[in-house]
């Protein structure tokens, strides 16, 4: 009985750790990357949520923010980068382009939705979403991971 409680507590603690420490991957694609940088900048400062350690290598990072249009030429590379990240890993699809193709949805060389390439945990709509939107999404994702609703 007490063993179970211990296991549950440990499990919860680990989930808490995963959730509250999401190191983003330096991965900017297009317009939304600038708003991502704004969210990182002094005015919005998402370091408050423990995401200030921007990691340049996928091996070190937990959170891939697909910030911008994913073209067909880029999609296999995105998949590759996602595969090279270490579990547990999460994906935020930022903006209309990454979520559904956005203004380029009728184009010939744009993937309409990055969820065809990698599994997405959070979609943010808008073109581009405001930084506060991204920060709110990050916070919601953190809470959901800590609650065990998002698993990897």
């Amino acid at each position, binding site marked *: 009985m007490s063993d179970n409680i211990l296991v549950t507590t440990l499990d919860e*603690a*680990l989930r*808490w*750790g*995963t959730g*509250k*420490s999401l*190191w983003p991957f330096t991965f900017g694609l297009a317009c939304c990357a600038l708003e991502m940088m704004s969210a990182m900048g*002094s005015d919005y*400062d998402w*370091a*408050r*949520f*423990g995401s*200030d*350690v921007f*990691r*340049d*290598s996928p*091996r*070190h990072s*937990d959170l891939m923010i697909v910030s911008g249009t994913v073209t067909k030429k880029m999609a296999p590379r995105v998949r590759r980068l996602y595969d*090279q990240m*270490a*579990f*547990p890993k999460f994906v935020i699809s930022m903006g209309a382009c990454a979520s559904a193709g956005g203004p380029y949805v009728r184009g010939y060389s744009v993937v309409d939705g990055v969820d065809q390439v990698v599994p997405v945990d959070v979609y943010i709509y808008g073109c581009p979403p405001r930084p506060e939107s991204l920060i709110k999404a990050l916070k919601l994702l953190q809470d959901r991971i800590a609650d065990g609703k998002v698993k990897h």
Partner: protein
Amino acid sequence: MNLFFFLMSILYGILKFLHIDFVPFTSHGYPIGLWIAYLIVAVVEVILVFILAMLVVVILIYVFRKYMADVQNRIGPNRLGPWGSLQLIADVFKLIQKQDIIPTAADKTAYRVAPYLVFTPVVIGFMIIPFGNVSLLNLMVINFNYTILFLVATMIISPVGEIIGGLSSHNKYGMLGALRAAAQDMSYEVPMLISLISVIILAGSFNAQDIVIAQRHIPFVVPEFLGFIIFFLAVLGKQVFPPFDLPESASELVSGYSTEYSGMRYGIFYMGGFAGTALASLVIATIYFGGWEGPIFPGTIWLIIKAGVFMLIFLLIQVSVFRVRVDQFLDMGWKYLLPLSIVNLFISVGFALFAGGVF
């Protein structure tokens, strides 16, 4: 009295309390019981120092993130715990769960060995640092002759781990990072050691404890200012710190030698860097700023204050300088630091021979 005997007496007390007498455990005249007690105490001591090192690292990373946020007009981590102080705990919990990826093409043995080579020497370095000698419980763990040489040796080994790590991970950036680490190692070790010789000349001893005591009246930074600057720059270069963070420069080689490392292995690299910084500032405080010497407060506090100032200076430098290019870096090591360190050597010989008994 040092940590070892402190722990020994605690163990002795515990055994007394349990009515166990360990001395009679003998075999053919050898006091095996005593040896076992020594062993237990040694293990506990190493674990304590390890925890101390980890604690220093955690505090340093936290301060670093907060301070960096401060100079950039931000807040920094503030959600977990008071002022975000639990953020690092969450990071460690996260790192423990991260997947451990070893690339197929990597040399697996060497890949696994590298993190150990980075972190182990730093912990040993923490065991040798003289933390004080007058307080009731001073933390000076080990004292013997030639401690200063071992201290410097611990600072010298970690680049070897970095080179092996970059070399074994079969990654082009890792390879270039390892090359740069080797170049750094080669260019900055010599000036560092020569300025250390100057200190040894002034103190007349290889013992870190004696070096501190020799600075009772005047810290060595006064006669050895040039040497201090050289040692400081060399330490910056050895510790992969801006402006000399060439081996893991983010904007050039993605993460340099640690590019392929993930999870806790990368965590060890990451923490090893900060632990090395802490050790380096402790060493600088010890050999140039009089270590634990100081009025009123106990020695340990003085050492922590002095080293803390240096850690803050390191952090400040990290956020406020550009990265140098590799050829400029080597030029600086060979064309400026090396001749200057030899000039400094002669100056200190002059002090030692002709300045009488001041030092």
